[in-house]
């Protein structure tokens, strides 16, 4: 992994500019989240302190500092999506999965999160499932999505 990060860093004039792709690589390698070792590894690869890497990662929403499920369901609750029923979609997910936003189902299958605007305002409510957009999603679509994830698991 360290070599992979260094290869990416070569494309930047200064290595530390590669911190975001580096963190993403580390997150993929560590099962979707960044444990403390990940910051040490990224730090070693880019000649940064683990503290600095963690500071950057904790700023950005797409980096997870806690373990996540095998699937990630992220739902925009900002104004455009809220106007077309994001709240109902959220409640439907809560019901289907039995978890609240920020939590992971007990079997470790799915993590549910609310996020800020994903940039799909014309097609709300935007739900991002495993980094792919579903838009628009209505409350009634939710059981199908959850079933799909369960089947894929």
């Amino acid at each position, binding site marked *: 992994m360290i070599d992979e990060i260094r290869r990416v860093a070569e494309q930047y004039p200064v290595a530390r500019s590669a911190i975001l792709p580096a963190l993403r690589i580390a997150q993929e390698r560590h099962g979707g989240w960044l444990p403390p070792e990940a910051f040490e590894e990224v730090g070693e690869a880019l000649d940064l302190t683990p503290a*600095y890497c963690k500071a950057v990662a*904790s700023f950005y929403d797409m980096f997870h500092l806690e373990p996540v499920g095998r699937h990630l369901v992220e739902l925009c609750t900002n104004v455009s999506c809220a106007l077309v029923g994001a709240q109902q979609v959220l409640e439907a997910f809560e019901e289907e999965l039995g978890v609240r936003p920020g939590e992971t189902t007990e079997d470790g299958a799915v993590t549910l999160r609310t996020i800020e605007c994903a940039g799909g305002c014309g097609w709300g409510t935007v739900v991002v499932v495993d980094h792919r957009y579903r838009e628009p999603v209505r409350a009634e679509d939710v059981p199908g999505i959850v079933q799909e994830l369960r089947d894929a698991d």
Partner: protein
Amino acid sequence: MSVPELVTVSVDGREVQVPKGTGLVETALAAGIEIPVFCYEPRLGPAIGACRMCLVEVEGMPPKPQAACTLTAQDGMVVKTALTSQLARNAQNATLEFILVNHPLDCPVCDKGGECPLQDLTFRFGPGRTRMTFPKRTFDKPIPISPTISLDRERCILCYRCTRFSESVAEDGELVAVNRGAQSMIATFEDEPYRGRFSGNVTELCPVGALLPTTYRFEARPWEIQTVPTVCGLCPVGCNVNVTTREGKVKRVLSRNHPDVDGGWICDKGRFAFGHLGARDRIVDPLRRQRRRGLQPAGWDEAVDEAERLLRAAQGRIVTALSGSETVEQAYGLAKLMRTGLGAHTAVLPEEISDAVDGFRLPLSAIAGAELIVVVGDDPVEERAPIVDLWLRAARRNGAEVVTTGVGGGAKACRQLAGEDDELGRRLRESDRPVLIWSGSGGAGGAHVAACAERLGFGSKPDSGVFYLPLTPNGRGVVEAWSAASDDEGPDPDPIGLLFVSGDEAASDPSVRSLAERADAVIATTMFQGSAVGWADLVLPGTSYLERDGTFVNLEGRLQRLRRAVVPPTPDELAWISQLAGRFGVEVSPYPSVVFGELSERIFGGLPYGEVGERAALRGREPTGELRAPAPAATPKGRGLRLVRYRPLFSGAAVERVPELAFQRPAAEVQLSPQDARRLRIKAGDEVDVRSNGTSRRLRARIDKGLVAGVARIADEHAEELQATVEVARA
């Protein structure tokens, strides 16, 4: 130097002229108007406009409040502060109200209370009453972010001064802000302590009581304390410090900005090592060896009598072992006693000192403006003279190139640099602002590097400079004082009748110990039991630099004033030196000012004591005689790596007695060059065995890119008995 263009700015209707580019905060100050700030601190790099306390209205700019700290003076600028602008006043009130939204009402129990910028600015600015009736955000508090610093996150106003210091001054990257927005907080990585040579500076930068020294917790209130301006005596930088005392005890050490020496930063050794004053094994009464009963406490009269007896009995066959931590006056007094009174001219110092670099003298701050800097020698700069490392970092940020070379062979590197076809040497010759630094032992006190500079043509370049980083804090002053006392010379005594050991550093030097074994009798003056009690016949209690008046000469050759911050628990050295000298018909005053007066006539051009000054000036360049190039040193033969030992910053008699600094002591490591590590198949963090002639040490490997191949560098305390050539292998 070009004269900067002056511009006229109006602040609240008052016109001022300042050099173009002056910060708006300073411009307003020039007009006699205060713009309140929290985050603004020019020493931390470009302003970041984080706190918004400095909002003002500027005509011609967008009609919204502007952060004054991010602006500079332009000609014709019209600035209105909260004094005259309703817009600015509203903005400022709102800012302060917001800053206080989550700030606890801790002032009565907060160590910052009474000297807190937030308290002060809340008193003078802002709405004066709060509308905040909601519960405030709470955190566990205080949490120790290291044994020396505690963090109270509730009090933090997120000005980012501390993290900017960590990132852009010390460049340690250990203290950061995690999360974002309202959730942001200051943190180190996981539960790691904030480890770094300069970490304590954040406690002075923090404008609230969020980062505080643990050693000052609940110790004093600002109206109970006294402040004594003096200089740190723990390394040859000689940082200017203010010592806070309360009821005759040192409570803390703060920086006292000398822009040419320290830029207002001090290291953690200088800041936190004062605890050694109250060490449990501190000697406060003289100790005299008595037959079969060992060392027994003795009265001062008895001790001085005994010292006189021992000195007489030696019949001039005396060697004086100095520490290089004596004041100039103390060293001079001792020199007069020994040399004029007893004809004993032989003195040893832990290192060689030369005045060769004085011909290339520059203030330390000039390093920050240098173009090309070459550091030669065995020791990491930050271990020997930490503030110099900060100046080097500043230089690098300003675009200078800093090259470290000649680890394990400084003399050879110097010869090479000065040679005809050395590439780096050529660039040094061509540069207008080159700097050479020798960091480590074996540099002939600076003569090697000075000779190199001479041959590189530094002599004709006023902005070039050479620095030699001595091992001892005042070795330079001590040598000057010793030689000023007499022009006579005498043979080295053999056998040694008496060894006089001055100070704990000399007492813990192995070569002094072996001299002691050859001496008929030993008088030692040390602060601590541990240092000399085992082998001296008479021990006279020593004092610390915080307890003395006098002068020190730092590595630049700057004469600086040491002031007594607290009265020592025992008469100071000059007191009994003076008494003893009297017994041998030599006049030495017990008053440092008088001693200095006499000495100054001889070596400091008659400078009066009172004019050494709170911010001492640097003497000009002093031409030195002919400089010889170093003789080729013998390269040790044999396979394996050359062992380079260094003395870590966090070591020595004072540091060892301060438990809060234990976490800063060097890890049991061996530093290897990347080349050697690869060849030996050793990775960073591996356990390795370091062997030489039958001794072996198990250490952890660290790869240091600054090291040359063929060298293994180990801190003194971990190298122990290892010999000059070592084999390193994975355990």
